[in-house]
Protein backbone atom coordinates (compact mmCIF):
# COMPACT_ATOMS: atom_id res chain seq x y z
CA UNK A 1 0.00 0.00 0.00
CA UNK A 2 1.42 3.36 -1.05
CA UNK A 3 1.79 6.29 1.30
CA UNK A 4 -1.15 8.21 -0.15
CA UNK A 5 -3.30 5.09 -0.25
CA UNK A 6 -2.47 4.47 3.40
CA UNK A 7 -3.87 7.85 4.39
CA UNK A 8 -6.75 7.76 1.88
CA UNK A 9 -8.19 4.70 3.60
CA UNK A 10 -8.99 6.97 6.57
CA UNK A 11 -11.22 9.16 4.41
CA UNK A 12 -14.77 9.14 5.74
CA UNK A 13 -17.73 8.55 3.51
CA UNK A 14 -19.76 11.66 2.82
CA UNK A 15 -23.28 11.99 4.23
CA UNK A 16 -24.68 11.47 0.74
CA UNK A 17 -22.70 8.25 0.33
CA UNK A 18 -23.80 6.98 3.75
CA UNK A 19 -27.43 7.86 3.03
CA UNK A 20 -27.25 6.24 -0.41
CA UNK A 21 -26.00 3.04 1.26
CA UNK A 22 -28.76 3.19 3.85
CA UNK A 23 -31.38 3.77 1.16
CA UNK A 24 -30.03 0.78 -0.75
CA UNK A 25 -30.23 -1.39 2.37
CA UNK A 26 -33.79 -0.20 3.05
CA UNK A 27 -34.81 -0.95 -0.52
CA UNK A 28 -33.29 -4.43 -0.21
CA UNK A 29 -35.16 -5.05 3.05
CA UNK A 30 -38.39 -3.89 1.45
CA UNK A 31 -37.84 -6.09 -1.58
CA UNK A 32 -37.20 -9.10 0.64
CA UNK A 33 -40.28 -8.33 2.75
CA UNK A 34 -42.44 -8.11 -0.35
CA UNK A 35 -41.11 -11.32 -1.82
CA UNK A 36 -41.23 -13.28 1.45
CA UNK A 37 -43.84 -15.97 1.43
CA UNK A 38 -45.17 -17.07 4.80
CA UNK A 39 -45.31 -20.76 5.52
CA UNK A 40 -48.69 -22.24 4.63
CA UNK A 41 -49.68 -24.52 7.48
CA UNK A 42 -52.03 -27.24 6.23
CA UNK A 43 -51.17 -29.72 8.95
CA UNK A 44 -54.05 -28.92 11.31
CA UNK A 45 -57.72 -29.68 10.93
CA UNK A 46 -58.82 -26.71 13.02
CA UNK A 47 -59.99 -23.59 11.21
CA UNK A 48 -57.10 -21.11 10.93
CA UNK A 49 -59.00 -17.79 11.20
CA UNK A 50 -59.29 -15.83 14.41
CA UNK A 51 -62.65 -16.05 16.19
CA UNK A 52 -65.38 -13.58 15.26
CA UNK A 53 -65.20 -10.35 17.33
CA UNK A 54 -68.73 -10.94 18.61
CA UNK A 55 -67.61 -14.22 20.14
CA UNK A 56 -64.64 -12.51 21.77
CA UNK A 57 -66.92 -9.71 23.01
CA UNK A 58 -69.35 -12.20 24.53
CA UNK A 59 -66.50 -13.98 26.30
CA UNK A 60 -65.12 -10.68 27.58
CA UNK A 61 -68.55 -9.62 28.82
CA UNK A 62 -69.02 -12.82 30.77
CA UNK A 63 -65.47 -12.69 32.11
CA UNK A 64 -66.02 -9.18 33.43
CA UNK A 65 -69.36 -10.06 34.93
CA UNK A 66 -67.93 -12.59 37.26
CA UNK A 67 -65.28 -15.26 36.98
CA UNK A 68 -65.63 -15.74 40.72
CA UNK A 69 -68.74 -17.84 40.28
CA UNK A 70 -69.11 -21.47 39.35
CA UNK A 71 -70.68 -22.02 35.94
CA UNK A 72 -74.20 -23.29 35.45
CA UNK A 73 -73.64 -27.00 35.77
CA UNK A 74 -75.98 -28.04 33.00
CA UNK A 75 -75.13 -25.11 30.72
CA UNK A 76 -78.87 -24.57 30.31
CA UNK A 77 -78.97 -21.75 27.75
CA UNK A 78 -76.40 -23.23 25.35
CA UNK A 79 -77.86 -26.65 25.87
CA UNK A 80 -81.39 -25.50 25.02
CA UNK A 81 -80.14 -23.63 21.96
CA UNK A 82 -78.26 -26.70 20.71
CA UNK A 83 -81.18 -29.01 21.43
CA UNK A 84 -83.52 -26.76 19.45
CA UNK A 85 -81.01 -26.59 16.62
CA UNK A 86 -80.82 -30.40 16.41
CA UNK A 87 -84.47 -31.05 17.09
CA UNK A 88 -83.95 -33.11 20.26
CA UNK A 89 -85.01 -32.72 23.86
CA UNK A 90 -82.52 -30.85 26.09
CA UNK A 91 -82.32 -33.96 28.27
CA UNK A 92 -80.84 -35.81 25.28
CA UNK A 93 -77.90 -33.43 25.03
CA UNK A 94 -75.01 -32.76 27.38
CA UNK A 95 -72.13 -30.32 27.21
CA UNK A 96 -68.49 -31.20 27.77
CA UNK A 97 -65.03 -29.71 27.65
CA UNK A 98 -64.57 -30.71 24.04
CA UNK A 99 -65.86 -33.79 22.24
CA UNK A 100 -62.62 -35.61 23.09
CA UNK A 101 -63.30 -35.42 26.82
CA UNK A 102 -66.85 -36.64 26.35
CA UNK A 103 -65.64 -39.56 24.22
CA UNK A 104 -63.15 -40.50 26.94
CA UNK A 105 -65.84 -40.24 29.60
CA UNK A 106 -68.18 -42.39 27.55
CA UNK A 107 -65.51 -45.05 27.12
CA UNK A 108 -64.79 -45.09 30.83
CA UNK A 109 -68.49 -45.22 31.64
CA UNK A 110 -69.21 -48.06 29.23
CA UNK A 111 -66.13 -50.25 29.37
CA UNK A 112 -65.09 -52.57 32.15
CA UNK A 113 -61.40 -53.41 32.51
CA UNK A 114 -60.40 -55.96 29.89
CA UNK A 115 -63.21 -55.15 27.51
CA UNK A 116 -62.54 -54.12 23.93
CA UNK A 117 -63.04 -51.04 21.83
CA UNK A 118 -63.31 -51.47 18.08
CA UNK A 119 -62.31 -48.68 15.79
CA UNK A 120 -61.54 -48.32 12.12
CA UNK A 121 -57.90 -47.57 11.41
CA UNK A 122 -56.34 -45.19 10.58
CA UNK A 123 -58.50 -42.93 12.63
CA UNK A 124 -58.39 -40.41 15.43
CA UNK A 125 -55.41 -41.41 17.63
CA UNK A 126 -57.42 -40.69 20.78
CA UNK A 127 -59.57 -43.83 20.38
CA UNK A 128 -56.88 -46.40 21.27
CA UNK A 129 -55.71 -44.09 24.02
CA UNK A 130 -59.11 -43.80 25.64
CA UNK A 131 -59.49 -47.59 25.57
CA UNK A 132 -56.22 -47.89 27.46
CA UNK A 133 -57.32 -45.24 29.96
CA UNK A 134 -60.46 -47.30 30.61
CA UNK A 135 -58.15 -50.30 31.23
CA UNK A 136 -59.54 -51.89 28.08
CA UNK A 137 -58.07 -52.93 24.80
CA UNK A 138 -58.31 -51.17 21.47
CA UNK A 139 -58.86 -53.32 18.42
CA UNK A 140 -58.06 -51.38 15.22
CA UNK A 141 -59.86 -52.61 12.13
CA UNK A 142 -58.91 -51.75 8.56
CA UNK A 143 -61.91 -51.55 6.35
CA UNK A 144 -65.55 -50.59 6.27
CA UNK A 145 -68.65 -51.54 8.22
CA UNK A 146 -68.38 -55.16 7.13
CA UNK A 147 -64.89 -55.38 8.63
CA UNK A 148 -66.19 -53.85 11.86
CA UNK A 149 -69.06 -56.32 12.01
CA UNK A 150 -66.73 -59.23 11.35
CA UNK A 151 -64.38 -58.06 14.08
CA UNK A 152 -67.27 -57.56 16.49
CA UNK A 153 -68.42 -61.11 15.81
CA UNK A 154 -64.88 -62.48 16.11
CA UNK A 155 -63.64 -60.62 19.17
CA UNK A 156 -65.02 -62.01 22.42
CA UNK A 157 -65.36 -58.94 24.59
CA UNK A 158 -66.28 -55.94 22.45
CA UNK A 159 -68.17 -53.26 24.37
CA UNK A 160 -67.66 -50.08 22.36
CA UNK A 161 -67.26 -49.19 18.69
CA UNK A 162 -65.76 -45.73 18.10
CA UNK A 163 -66.22 -44.35 14.63
CA UNK A 164 -65.38 -40.92 13.29
CA UNK A 165 -67.55 -39.61 10.48
CA UNK A 166 -66.02 -37.98 8.54
CA UNK A 167 -63.01 -39.94 9.62
CA UNK A 168 -59.82 -38.20 10.60
CA UNK A 169 -57.47 -38.62 8.71
CA UNK A 170 -59.09 -40.38 5.74
CA UNK A 171 -62.07 -38.05 5.41
CA UNK A 172 -64.47 -40.94 4.76
CA UNK A 173 -68.09 -40.41 5.73
CA UNK A 174 -70.15 -43.19 7.26
CA UNK A 175 -73.49 -42.88 5.54
CA UNK A 176 -76.70 -43.16 7.54
CA UNK A 177 -77.54 -46.40 5.81
CA UNK A 178 -74.15 -47.89 6.68
CA UNK A 179 -74.42 -46.61 10.24
CA UNK A 180 -77.84 -48.19 10.59
CA UNK A 181 -76.44 -51.45 9.22
CA UNK A 182 -73.60 -51.31 11.74
CA UNK A 183 -75.97 -50.61 14.63
CA UNK A 184 -78.29 -53.39 13.59
CA UNK A 185 -75.48 -55.88 13.08
CA UNK A 186 -73.66 -55.37 16.37
CA UNK A 187 -74.37 -57.47 19.45
CA UNK A 188 -76.96 -55.96 21.76
CA UNK A 189 -74.56 -54.80 24.46
CA UNK A 190 -72.19 -52.91 22.17
CA UNK A 191 -72.47 -49.12 22.12
CA UNK A 192 -71.50 -47.00 19.14
CA UNK A 193 -69.70 -43.70 19.75
CA UNK A 194 -70.07 -41.65 16.60
CA UNK A 195 -67.58 -38.79 16.49
CA UNK A 196 -68.99 -36.11 14.21
CA UNK A 197 -66.51 -33.35 14.98
CA UNK A 198 -66.07 -32.71 11.24
CA UNK A 199 -69.60 -33.37 10.05
CA UNK A 200 -70.30 -29.73 9.12
CA UNK A 201 -67.90 -30.10 6.17
CA UNK A 202 -69.71 -33.10 4.65
CA UNK A 203 -71.95 -32.58 1.64
CA UNK A 204 -72.88 -36.18 0.81
CA UNK A 205 -75.72 -36.09 3.31
CA UNK A 206 -77.23 -33.50 5.66
CA UNK A 207 -75.23 -32.99 8.86
CA UNK A 208 -78.25 -34.00 10.93
CA UNK A 209 -78.76 -37.32 9.11
CA UNK A 210 -77.23 -39.52 11.78
CA UNK A 211 -79.37 -37.93 14.51
CA UNK A 212 -82.42 -39.51 12.93
CA UNK A 213 -81.13 -42.89 14.10
CA UNK A 214 -81.03 -41.86 17.76
CA UNK A 215 -84.70 -42.54 18.27
CA UNK A 216 -84.47 -46.13 17.10
CA UNK A 217 -80.97 -46.96 18.39
CA UNK A 218 -80.49 -46.22 22.08
CA UNK A 219 -76.90 -47.57 21.95
CA UNK A 220 -75.82 -44.75 19.66
CA UNK A 221 -74.16 -41.62 21.03
CA UNK A 222 -73.26 -38.77 18.68
CA UNK A 223 -70.45 -36.34 19.56
CA UNK A 224 -70.10 -32.88 18.09
CA UNK A 225 -67.54 -30.12 18.61
CA UNK A 226 -67.05 -26.35 18.32
CA UNK A 227 -63.37 -26.92 17.55
CA UNK A 228 -63.39 -27.50 13.81
CA UNK A 229 -65.84 -25.62 11.54
CA UNK A 230 -66.71 -23.21 14.34
CA UNK A 231 -63.02 -22.43 14.82
CA UNK A 232 -63.19 -22.35 18.62
CA UNK A 233 -60.80 -25.14 19.55
CA UNK A 234 -59.37 -23.08 22.39
CA UNK A 235 -62.74 -22.84 24.12
CA UNK A 236 -62.98 -26.61 24.57
CA UNK A 237 -66.68 -27.01 24.03
CA UNK A 238 -68.25 -30.16 22.69
CA UNK A 239 -71.52 -31.98 23.22
CA UNK A 240 -72.98 -35.41 23.05
CA UNK A 241 -76.45 -36.35 21.87
CA UNK A 242 -78.18 -39.60 22.69
CA UNK A 243 -81.54 -41.17 22.12
CA UNK A 244 -84.47 -40.86 24.52
CA UNK A 245 -83.24 -43.94 26.34
CA UNK A 246 -79.70 -42.67 26.82
CA UNK A 247 -80.45 -39.96 29.39
CA UNK A 248 -78.88 -41.81 32.31
CA UNK A 249 -75.72 -42.60 30.39
CA UNK A 250 -75.44 -39.02 29.20
CA UNK A 251 -75.73 -37.79 32.78
CA UNK A 252 -72.71 -39.96 33.64
CA UNK A 253 -70.63 -38.30 30.94
CA UNK A 254 -71.17 -34.73 32.09
CA UNK A 255 -68.14 -32.96 33.57
CA UNK A 256 -68.37 -32.88 37.35
CA UNK A 257 -68.21 -29.10 37.56
CA UNK A 258 -69.70 -28.30 34.19
CA UNK A 259 -68.24 -26.34 31.31
CA UNK A 260 -66.66 -22.95 31.90
CA UNK A 261 -69.17 -20.11 31.68
CA UNK A 262 -66.73 -18.22 29.47
CA UNK A 263 -66.61 -21.13 27.02
CA UNK A 264 -70.37 -21.47 27.06
CA UNK A 265 -70.79 -17.75 26.33
CA UNK A 266 -68.43 -17.97 23.35
CA UNK A 267 -70.14 -21.04 21.94
CA UNK A 268 -73.61 -19.55 22.46
CA UNK A 269 -72.67 -16.31 20.71
CA UNK A 270 -71.13 -18.30 17.87
CA UNK A 271 -74.39 -20.24 17.47
CA UNK A 272 -76.45 -17.06 17.46
CA UNK A 273 -74.35 -14.81 15.24
CA UNK A 274 -71.82 -16.84 13.27
CA UNK A 275 -73.97 -19.32 11.38
CA UNK A 276 -73.55 -17.44 8.12
CA UNK A 277 -69.81 -17.35 8.63
CA UNK A 278 -69.75 -21.11 9.15
CA UNK A 279 -71.82 -21.56 6.00
CA UNK A 280 -69.22 -19.55 4.08
CA UNK A 281 -66.39 -21.67 5.47
CA UNK A 282 -68.22 -24.86 4.59
CA UNK A 283 -68.99 -23.52 1.10
CA UNK A 284 -65.28 -22.77 0.63
CA UNK A 285 -64.40 -26.34 1.59
CA UNK A 286 -67.09 -27.69 -0.74
CA UNK A 287 -65.55 -25.71 -3.60
CA UNK A 288 -61.92 -26.48 -2.87
CA UNK A 289 -62.19 -30.16 -1.95
CA UNK A 290 -63.03 -31.49 -5.45
CA UNK A 291 -60.45 -29.12 -7.02
CA UNK A 292 -57.66 -30.31 -4.76
CA UNK A 293 -58.63 -33.98 -5.08
CA UNK A 294 -58.76 -33.70 -8.88
CA UNK A 295 -55.49 -31.77 -8.97
CA UNK A 296 -53.70 -34.32 -6.83
CA UNK A 297 -55.06 -37.21 -8.87
CA UNK A 298 -53.81 -35.52 -12.04
CA UNK A 299 -50.37 -35.46 -10.45
CA UNK A 300 -50.55 -39.22 -9.89
CA UNK A 301 -51.50 -39.18 -6.22
CA UNK A 302 -53.72 -41.76 -4.64
CA UNK A 303 -56.48 -39.68 -3.01
CA UNK A 304 -59.58 -40.91 -1.25
CA UNK A 305 -62.98 -39.22 -1.53
CA UNK A 306 -62.97 -36.94 1.46
CA UNK A 307 -65.98 -35.45 3.19
CA UNK A 308 -63.87 -33.48 5.68
CA UNK A 309 -61.86 -30.27 5.52
CA UNK A 310 -58.75 -32.20 4.47
CA UNK A 311 -57.63 -34.79 1.97
CA UNK A 312 -55.72 -38.00 2.64
CA UNK A 313 -53.26 -38.60 -0.13
CA UNK A 314 -50.32 -40.81 -1.03
CA UNK A 315 -47.53 -39.88 -3.44
CA UNK A 316 -46.82 -42.51 -6.15
CA UNK A 317 -43.16 -42.80 -5.08
CA UNK A 318 -42.44 -40.95 -1.84
CA UNK A 319 -43.72 -42.05 1.52
CA UNK A 320 -45.66 -39.65 3.71
CA UNK A 321 -42.69 -38.39 5.69
CA UNK A 322 -40.65 -37.72 2.55
CA UNK A 323 -43.55 -35.91 0.89
CA UNK A 324 -44.19 -33.82 4.00
CA UNK A 325 -40.49 -32.90 4.17
CA UNK A 326 -40.39 -31.97 0.49
CA UNK A 327 -43.50 -29.81 0.83
CA UNK A 328 -42.08 -28.18 3.95
CA UNK A 329 -39.06 -27.17 1.85
CA UNK A 330 -41.55 -25.38 -0.42
CA UNK A 331 -43.15 -23.66 2.58
CA UNK A 332 -46.23 -25.87 2.82
CA UNK A 333 -46.69 -27.86 6.01
CA UNK A 334 -48.79 -31.02 5.93
CA UNK A 335 -49.30 -33.77 8.48
CA UNK A 336 -47.21 -36.87 7.76
CA UNK A 337 -49.17 -40.08 7.97
CA UNK A 338 -46.84 -42.04 10.24
CA UNK A 339 -48.23 -40.24 13.29
CA UNK A 340 -51.78 -40.81 12.03
CA UNK A 341 -51.56 -44.55 11.41
CA UNK A 342 -50.55 -44.85 7.76
CA UNK A 343 -46.95 -43.90 6.85
CA UNK A 344 -47.54 -43.80 3.09
CA UNK A 345 -50.03 -40.94 3.30
CA UNK A 346 -50.14 -37.32 4.29
CA UNK A 347 -53.14 -35.36 5.53
CA UNK A 348 -53.54 -31.99 3.85
CA UNK A 349 -56.00 -29.50 5.28
CA UNK A 350 -58.10 -27.42 2.91
CA UNK A 351 -58.26 -23.65 3.09
CA UNK A 352 -58.91 -20.93 0.52
CA UNK A 353 -58.52 -21.08 -3.26
CA UNK A 354 -55.14 -19.34 -3.02
CA UNK A 355 -53.96 -21.95 -0.52
CA UNK A 356 -55.15 -24.76 -2.78
CA UNK A 357 -53.32 -23.25 -5.76
CA UNK A 358 -50.11 -22.88 -3.78
CA UNK A 359 -50.43 -26.43 -2.47
CA UNK A 360 -50.92 -27.87 -5.95
CA UNK A 361 -47.95 -25.90 -7.28
CA UNK A 362 -45.79 -27.21 -4.43
CA UNK A 363 -46.98 -30.79 -4.98
CA UNK A 364 -46.34 -30.48 -8.73
CA UNK A 365 -42.82 -29.25 -7.99
CA UNK A 366 -42.23 -32.29 -5.80
CA UNK A 367 -43.61 -34.60 -8.49
Amino acid sequence: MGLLDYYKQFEAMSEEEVNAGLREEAAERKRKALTRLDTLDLSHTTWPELPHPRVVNAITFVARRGLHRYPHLRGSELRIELAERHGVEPSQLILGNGAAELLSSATRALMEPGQQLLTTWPSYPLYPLMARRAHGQAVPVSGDVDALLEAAAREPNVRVVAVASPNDPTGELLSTAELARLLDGLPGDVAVLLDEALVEFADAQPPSASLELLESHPRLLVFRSFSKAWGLAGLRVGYAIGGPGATELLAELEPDLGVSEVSQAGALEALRSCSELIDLRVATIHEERPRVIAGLRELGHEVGDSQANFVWTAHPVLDGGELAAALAQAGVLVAAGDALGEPRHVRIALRSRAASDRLLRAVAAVA
Partner: protein
Amino acid sequence: MRTDPADNGGLFVGRRPGTAPVHFRSLPQRGSERRRRIDGSFANLLLAAIVALSVLCWGPIPLACLWLGSEADYLSGSVGLGILVAFVGLFGLLFGALSLLRRLDQAWILVRRAAGHDQRTGVLPRVFGATAAVCAVVFAVWFLVIHGPGSSTISGGRSSL
Protein backbone atom coordinates in the same frame (compact mmCIF):
# COMPACT_ATOMS: atom_id res chain seq x y z
CA MET B 1 -32.98 11.93 41.10
CA ARG B 2 -33.07 10.18 37.77
CA THR B 3 -30.68 7.31 37.52
CA ASP B 4 -32.07 5.47 34.54
CA PRO B 5 -30.23 6.46 31.33
CA ALA B 6 -33.33 5.49 29.35
CA ASP B 7 -35.44 7.95 31.35
CA ASN B 8 -34.94 10.85 28.98
CA GLY B 9 -38.46 12.17 28.65
CA GLY B 10 -38.73 10.86 25.12
CA LEU B 11 -35.88 12.98 23.79
CA PHE B 12 -32.87 11.53 22.04
CA VAL B 13 -34.47 8.14 21.82
CA GLY B 14 -31.88 7.17 19.24
CA ARG B 15 -28.41 8.62 18.91
CA ARG B 16 -27.93 12.30 19.72
CA PRO B 17 -27.60 14.54 16.66
CA GLY B 18 -24.05 15.05 15.45
CA THR B 19 -22.69 11.99 17.18
CA ALA B 20 -22.79 9.59 14.25
CA PRO B 21 -19.71 7.41 13.99
CA VAL B 22 -17.31 7.91 11.09
CA HIS B 23 -18.21 5.60 8.21
CA PHE B 24 -15.30 4.23 6.20
CA ARG B 25 -15.58 2.60 2.80
CA SER B 26 -13.63 -0.33 4.16
CA LEU B 27 -12.09 -0.96 7.54
CA PRO B 28 -8.73 0.93 7.60
CA GLN B 29 -5.61 -1.07 8.25
CA ARG B 30 -3.84 0.84 10.98
CA GLY B 31 -0.08 1.02 11.14
CA SER B 32 2.22 -0.01 13.96
CA GLU B 33 2.57 1.92 17.19
CA ARG B 34 5.70 3.54 15.85
CA ARG B 35 3.98 4.63 12.69
CA ARG B 36 1.12 6.05 14.72
CA ARG B 37 3.58 8.11 16.75
CA ILE B 38 5.18 9.37 13.55
CA ASP B 39 1.73 10.22 12.23
CA GLY B 40 1.02 12.11 15.44
CA SER B 41 4.13 14.22 14.88
CA PHE B 42 3.23 14.64 11.23
CA ALA B 43 -0.20 15.89 12.28
CA ASN B 44 1.45 18.44 14.56
CA LEU B 45 3.62 19.61 11.67
CA LEU B 46 0.54 20.02 9.52
CA LEU B 47 -1.13 21.94 12.33
CA ALA B 48 1.88 24.24 12.52
CA ALA B 49 1.68 24.79 8.76
CA ILE B 50 -2.02 25.60 9.09
CA VAL B 51 -1.29 28.11 11.86
CA ALA B 52 1.53 29.72 9.86
CA LEU B 53 -0.56 29.97 6.71
CA SER B 54 -3.49 31.38 8.68
CA VAL B 55 -1.21 34.05 10.19
CA LEU B 56 0.00 34.92 6.67
CA CYS B 57 -3.60 35.63 5.70
CA TRP B 58 -4.01 38.28 8.40
CA GLY B 59 -0.80 40.32 7.83
CA PRO B 60 1.96 39.37 5.45
CA ILE B 61 -0.25 38.61 2.47
CA PRO B 62 -2.21 41.91 2.62
CA LEU B 63 1.05 43.80 3.21
CA ALA B 64 2.70 42.08 0.27
CA CYS B 65 -0.24 42.95 -1.94
CA LEU B 66 -0.10 46.58 -0.83
CA TRP B 67 3.60 46.58 -1.65
CA LEU B 68 2.87 45.09 -5.10
CA GLY B 69 0.20 47.76 -5.67
CA SER B 70 2.59 50.55 -4.71
CA GLU B 71 5.25 49.15 -7.06
CA ALA B 72 2.72 49.07 -9.89
CA ASP B 73 1.71 52.63 -9.06
CA TYR B 74 5.36 53.75 -9.01
CA LEU B 75 6.31 52.00 -12.24
CA SER B 76 3.19 52.94 -14.24
CA GLY B 77 2.34 56.24 -12.60
CA SER B 78 -1.26 55.06 -12.40
CA VAL B 79 -2.90 54.90 -8.98
CA GLY B 80 -5.82 52.97 -10.41
CA LEU B 81 -3.50 50.28 -11.76
CA GLY B 82 -1.79 50.11 -8.38
CA ILE B 83 -5.12 49.61 -6.60
CA LEU B 84 -6.18 47.01 -9.15
CA VAL B 85 -2.93 45.07 -8.78
CA ALA B 86 -3.22 45.23 -5.01
CA PHE B 87 -6.81 43.90 -5.00
CA VAL B 88 -6.23 41.21 -7.62
CA GLY B 89 -3.11 40.08 -5.78
CA LEU B 90 -4.92 40.13 -2.45
CA PHE B 91 -7.91 38.08 -3.63
CA GLY B 92 -5.74 35.66 -5.59
CA LEU B 93 -3.37 35.04 -2.74
CA LEU B 94 -6.05 34.90 -0.06
CA PHE B 95 -8.27 32.46 -1.94
CA GLY B 96 -5.21 30.40 -2.88
CA ALA B 97 -4.16 30.33 0.76
CA LEU B 98 -7.64 29.39 1.92
CA SER B 99 -7.79 26.60 -0.64
CA LEU B 100 -4.43 25.33 0.54
CA LEU B 101 -5.55 25.63 4.18
CA ARG B 102 -8.60 23.52 3.46
CA ARG B 103 -6.47 20.82 1.84
CA LEU B 104 -4.07 20.91 4.76
CA ASP B 105 -7.00 20.62 7.16
CA GLN B 106 -8.32 17.54 5.31
CA ALA B 107 -4.85 16.03 5.36
CA TRP B 108 -4.56 16.82 9.08
CA ILE B 109 -7.86 14.94 9.75
CA LEU B 110 -6.59 11.87 7.88
CA VAL B 111 -3.22 11.90 9.59
CA ARG B 112 -4.84 12.33 13.00
CA ARG B 113 -7.04 9.31 12.27
CA ALA B 114 -3.99 7.39 11.14
CA ALA B 115 -2.39 8.35 14.44
CA GLY B 116 -5.25 6.63 16.24
CA HIS B 117 -7.55 9.54 17.11
CA ASP B 118 -11.29 9.55 16.50
CA GLN B 119 -10.99 12.79 14.52
CA ARG B 120 -14.36 13.81 13.12
CA THR B 121 -13.92 17.52 12.29
CA GLY B 122 -11.08 19.73 11.07
CA VAL B 123 -9.10 22.29 13.04
CA LEU B 124 -9.20 25.09 10.45
CA PRO B 125 -12.18 27.12 11.75
CA ARG B 126 -10.68 27.30 15.23
CA VAL B 127 -7.15 28.10 14.00
CA PHE B 128 -8.41 30.68 11.54
CA GLY B 129 -10.52 32.34 14.22
CA ALA B 130 -7.71 32.24 16.78
CA THR B 131 -5.12 33.69 14.40
CA ALA B 132 -7.58 36.41 13.39
CA ALA B 133 -8.03 37.34 17.05
CA VAL B 134 -4.29 37.28 17.77
CA CYS B 135 -3.49 39.32 14.67
CA ALA B 136 -6.23 41.82 15.52
CA VAL B 137 -4.74 42.26 19.00
CA VAL B 138 -1.22 42.64 17.59
CA PHE B 139 -2.45 45.16 15.05
CA ALA B 140 -4.32 47.09 17.74
CA VAL B 141 -1.20 47.20 19.93
CA TRP B 142 0.93 48.32 17.01
CA PHE B 143 -1.62 50.86 15.85
CA LEU B 144 -2.54 52.32 19.22
CA VAL B 145 0.65 51.95 21.20
CA ILE B 146 3.68 51.63 18.92
CA HIS B 147 2.74 53.70 15.89
CA GLY B 148 -0.04 55.81 17.30
CA PRO B 149 -3.28 56.78 15.59
CA GLY B 150 -3.26 59.62 13.06
CA SER B 151 -1.53 60.48 9.80
CA SER B 152 2.26 60.58 9.52
CA THR B 153 2.07 63.19 6.71
CA ILE B 154 -0.55 65.52 8.11
CA SER B 155 0.27 67.50 11.29
CA GLY B 156 -1.53 66.65 14.54
CA GLY B 157 0.01 63.21 15.02
CA ARG B 158 2.50 62.23 17.68
CA SER B 159 5.39 62.78 15.26
CA SER B 160 4.50 66.47 14.94
CA LEU B 161 4.73 67.14 18.66
